[in-house]
């Protein structure tokens, strides 16, 4: 299929539809509004259901219900709206239900602003909702990658019966790039025999539940979920490494920031400084081994984590490199986007030993 020029938000919506998601529940918020708007137009045409709920909390619980009934379903929002959804996300994870949640991140905390940010990393990767659970968190850096990850995300969610989050930012949501919706091989997914579809007396009833009053039962349930997480950590890690061979310094960045970092790396290259990039594509599971491997290389003298936040992923980078090399941080926040020139400035400071 030929490439089409599309806005990130709309491309994500189209990718979801092509992945077989015919149910969308959401509530408007900038900078992701083109996504539900696209769904509102397209889903009725194909016999799906778009519903603008009365709130984010209602919307995520509709996702909970639709997923429990076996539907491929999604919601989308931006930071403050995602906070509202967190209770429902915890219930969905606790009930072992698949769904896709898209967060087009804007600056926070509180109502914050509407400009792009990455300050929801902690919320996405470390819980957000209560209890022992994990979400698979996918972080695209191009619109093409967003499209591909949406399609993969639904499969991952179904395979492990767990919520998956696509974590992007306002830049990716708003910008346009050429995308191709590739025909995909059908993946062999287990039938959803657990879904509450009405049993008409011919099978035992299915119950969707996250309540376990007995402590031992709850522990067993959580341990069972965590055995899935072990599998996910073994098989679902995705990472891009760029220019790392022979690099003196390695930048850690994801999403839009990784693209800006690449521009800085090109500038550094012209100035004779060799800089690499490790770009986590899955933020959870985090590509720990990749960071550790490069930290053990003699030519790599230090790491510089760059984020549109006050420093969140930087903690996972430090945990991964186990103190083998120093890990510096540079971030802009509140919706301010770092420039390649600023990042180059930080690179020079680290290389020149003037970063404390």
């Amino acid at each position, binding site marked *: 299929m030929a*490439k089409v*020029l599309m806005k990130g938000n709309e491309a994500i919506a189209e990718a979801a539809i092509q992945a077989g998601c015919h149910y969308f529940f959401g509530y408007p918020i*900038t*900078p992701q509004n083109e996504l539900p708007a696209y769904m509102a137009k397209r889903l009725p045409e194909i016999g799906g259901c778009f519903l603008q709920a009365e709130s984010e909390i209602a919307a995520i619980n509709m996702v909970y219900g639709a997923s429990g009934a076996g539907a491929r379903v999604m919601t989308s929002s931006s930071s403050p709206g995602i906070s509202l959804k967190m209770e429902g996300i915890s219930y969905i994870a606790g009930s072992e239900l698949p769904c896709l949640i898209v967060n087009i991140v804007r600056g926070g905390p509180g109502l914050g602003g*509407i*400009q792009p940010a990455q300050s929801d990393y902690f919320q996405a990767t470390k819980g957000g909702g209560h209890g022992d659970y994990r979400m698979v968190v996918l972080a695209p850096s191009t619109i093409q990658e967003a499209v591909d990850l949406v399609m993969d995300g639904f499969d991952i969610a179904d395979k492990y019966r767990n919520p998956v989050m696509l974590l992007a930012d*306002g*830049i990716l949501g*708003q*910008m*346009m*790039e*050429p995308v191709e919706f590739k025909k995909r091989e059908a993946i062999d997914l287990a039938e959803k025999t657990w879904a509450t579809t009405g049993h008409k007396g011919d099978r035992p009833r299915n119950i969707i539940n996250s309540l376990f009053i007995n402590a031992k039962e709850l522990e067993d349930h959580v341990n069972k979920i965590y055995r899935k997480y072990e599998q996910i950590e073994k098989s679902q890690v995705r990472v891009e490494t760029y220019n790392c061979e022979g690099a003196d310094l390695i930048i850690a960045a994801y999403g*839009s920031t990784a*693209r*800006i970092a*690449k*521009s800085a790396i*090109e500038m550094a290259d012209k100035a004779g400084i060799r800089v690499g990039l490790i770009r986590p594509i899955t933020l959870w599971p985090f590509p720990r081994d990749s960071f550790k491997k490069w930290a053990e290389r003699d030519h790599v003298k230090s790491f510089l984590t760059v984020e549109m936040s006050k420093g969140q992923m930087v903690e996972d980078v430090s945990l991964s490199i186990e103190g083998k090399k120093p890990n510096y941080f540079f971030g802009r926040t509140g*919706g301010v*986007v770092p*420039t*390649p*020139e600023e990042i180059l400035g930080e690179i020079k400071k680290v290389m020149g030993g003037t970063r404390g």
Partner: protein
Amino acid sequence: MADQRSDRLIIAGFGGQGVMSLGQLLAHAGMLEGKNVSWLPSYGPEMRGGTSNCNVIVSNAPVASPIVTRASALIALNMPSLDRFESAVEPGGILLLNSSLINRRVEREDIRVYYIPASKIAEELGNIRVANSVLLGAYIEARGNVKRESVIMALKEVMGPSKQDLVPINERAMKKGASLIRELTN
């Protein structure tokens, strides 16, 4: 060595002047020619009467940062846009301004400035709204690494069946802009 040419534009004007669609057409045309492109709109809390702008990259290499901080070209459709983005043009870059609405000269000597009375030309053509196409035609003639035919093709695709009748006047506007550049350079 492969041609790593990368054109990085800032296009800015009042809301309603067709700034966003000018950028989209350029990106679309680049895509049709198999180039790497990106289009990034400003979506911030812009003031009424202020500027709306977009960043466009048309490149032979993959697009890294989609944000244009140092522009190879600025297309300014109104005065506030010129004031805000004049300094973002890199030395050796070009600046096309809508001299119908911008009544000052640009002092910089390290960039090439083209004064295009785009609104006036558009009015003469019979539709003030094609001022953006005058500037697009001028840009392509001056610097663009896309062909006008590709832009016309993109225009036809973007316009949809109900607006095909607007294609010819936009095409005329682009040609007018291009001929103006040829006059200015000769």
